[in-house]
């Protein structure tokens, strides 16, 4: 079962059980959604901007433990970041989940290194990140109900 505990590390189980920043932001100015038609997972990311930085960030949607934990962790990583900073964070995260190599500096995202052994699950891990980057690229505008 070593593979499985690699995949479902304590960090992931924790974020899955107690997701951070879950829910729609009432004052959001940017929003983007992604879905994985193959498995039905979906994720919406809400941003409230502070200049060119993310002020507040929230997410919504449904999916497996990997996708939910990854979305939760993503919100903690990207708060306060600009688009280009977020893109480089995403690049590092993508490296981790596709290659399994852990980051040089310690970070909670290292918990996702086990995903690389389950290629079918990589999309689960990156879904929310894609949505966040897409939202960041949009112009500000009031988000409809």
């Amino acid at each position: 079962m070593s593979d499985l505990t690699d995949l479902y590390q304590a960090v992931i189980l924790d974020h899955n059980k107690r997701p951070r920043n879950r829910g729609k932001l009432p004052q959001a100015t940017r929003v983007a959604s992604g879905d994985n038609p193959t498995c039905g997972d979906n994720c919406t990311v809400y941003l409230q901007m502070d200049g060119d930085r993310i002020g507040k960030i929230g997410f919504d949607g449904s999916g497996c433990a990997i996708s939910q934990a990854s979305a939760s962790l993503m919100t903690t990583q990207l708060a306060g970041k600009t688009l280009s900073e977020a893109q480089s964070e995403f690049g590092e995260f993508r490296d981790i989940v596709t290659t399994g190599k852990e980051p040089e500096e310690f970070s909670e995202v290292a918990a996702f290194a086990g995903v690389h052994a389950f290629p079918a699950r990589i999309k689960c891990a990156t879904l929310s990140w894609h949505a966040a980057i897409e939202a960041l690229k949009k112009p500000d505008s009031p988000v409809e109900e």
Partner: protein
Amino acid sequence: MTPDFSNLRLDFPVLDQHVGGHPLVYLDNAATTHKPRAVIDALARFYERDNSNVHRGLHALSMRATDGYEAARERTTKFINASESAEVVFTSGTTASVNLVAQGWGRDTLKPGDVVVCTEMEHHSNMVPWQIVCQQTGATLRYIPVLGENAEGGLDMAAYDELLLAGNVKLVAFTHISNTLGTINPATEICAKAKAAGALTMVDGAQSAGHENVDVQAMGCDFYAFSGHKMAAPTGIGVLYGRRELMDVMSPWQGGGGMISTVEYEGSKWKPSPERFEAGTPNVADAIGLHAAMDYLDSVGRPAIGRHESELAALAYDALSELPGIRILGPGKGQPRAGLVSFAFEGVHAHDVVTFADQDGVALRGGHHCNQPLMRKLGLPSTTRASFYLYNTPADVDALVASMQRILKFFGVE
């Protein structure tokens, strides 16, 4: 004279392997089934001895290939008790068969005001083609609802009566056995009612053809579609049965070699069925593999296979329903159920379940099972499905249940 199912596993080479360090327990049969040695050998033998194009050839190999291909059609005619082989068209699978009817029959026939009736439990393959042709022709698509919060009530037959009563129904498209719920629909009754209302019927037999005796004449359907790969035959081959009178007037869905009687630069005339619907070089080898699969299944006996699977499903149903936070879809305890069980756990997503079970060597399917709208109606993003075939045993059910217990523990659901 029940056959002995405990050793059938030995006929299927793929089952002789370990996954995650455990012997493979394959419970994804509603997605696709494995092939017995006899089918794999039939394929190899064709390519090693008789391989050739069919119909237009007069040399030895071509005649053997043609004979083999037409013998597969005869075998299929018997397998579903069609009245003649002109009613049996080979396609690439159920999906292609349904599209052939939707476009070949529906597109010419349907018009605004006409109604096509489908069910809420249809697989996308017997739903989307009807959405498309209704959109193309202006006909209206209506659905027979499923009853119960876990769809345990099956189709709402009273609602069906009303749909028919409302009139203008030209076709009723429904699945014989639901791949998501395990529900066995009352096909004969549905067909009889449709007929009385002047509507044709298109039965999706993907989950029934290899699991019970099918008699299209007794069922009274107009079209019946199924896939080889879901009944021990190769991928890439399927069947459309259509009543002769309909096949004689339906437009071909594809143009090309083999389906024409005369071609001039200005236009063409079609051959009768089945050739009319088989443009291009057919999938000869896989038709011959399908023939071998039909022989294999009938050597075991389809009614016995169906009973065996339903018994396994009942065992699984009973054991799984003891688990905390589980929701099982489809027929309730003791109700007739085909050989599959779909379920969802409170707090553990189907994909986590499937990934976890895989490490135990148990192959399951998680997702919407190509029935997104039903999932949405039931308020579930996805379910986990265990589906059985003749080579599964009660020990496989035990492995399934044990694996589910472990995952619940792992995720702290108690």
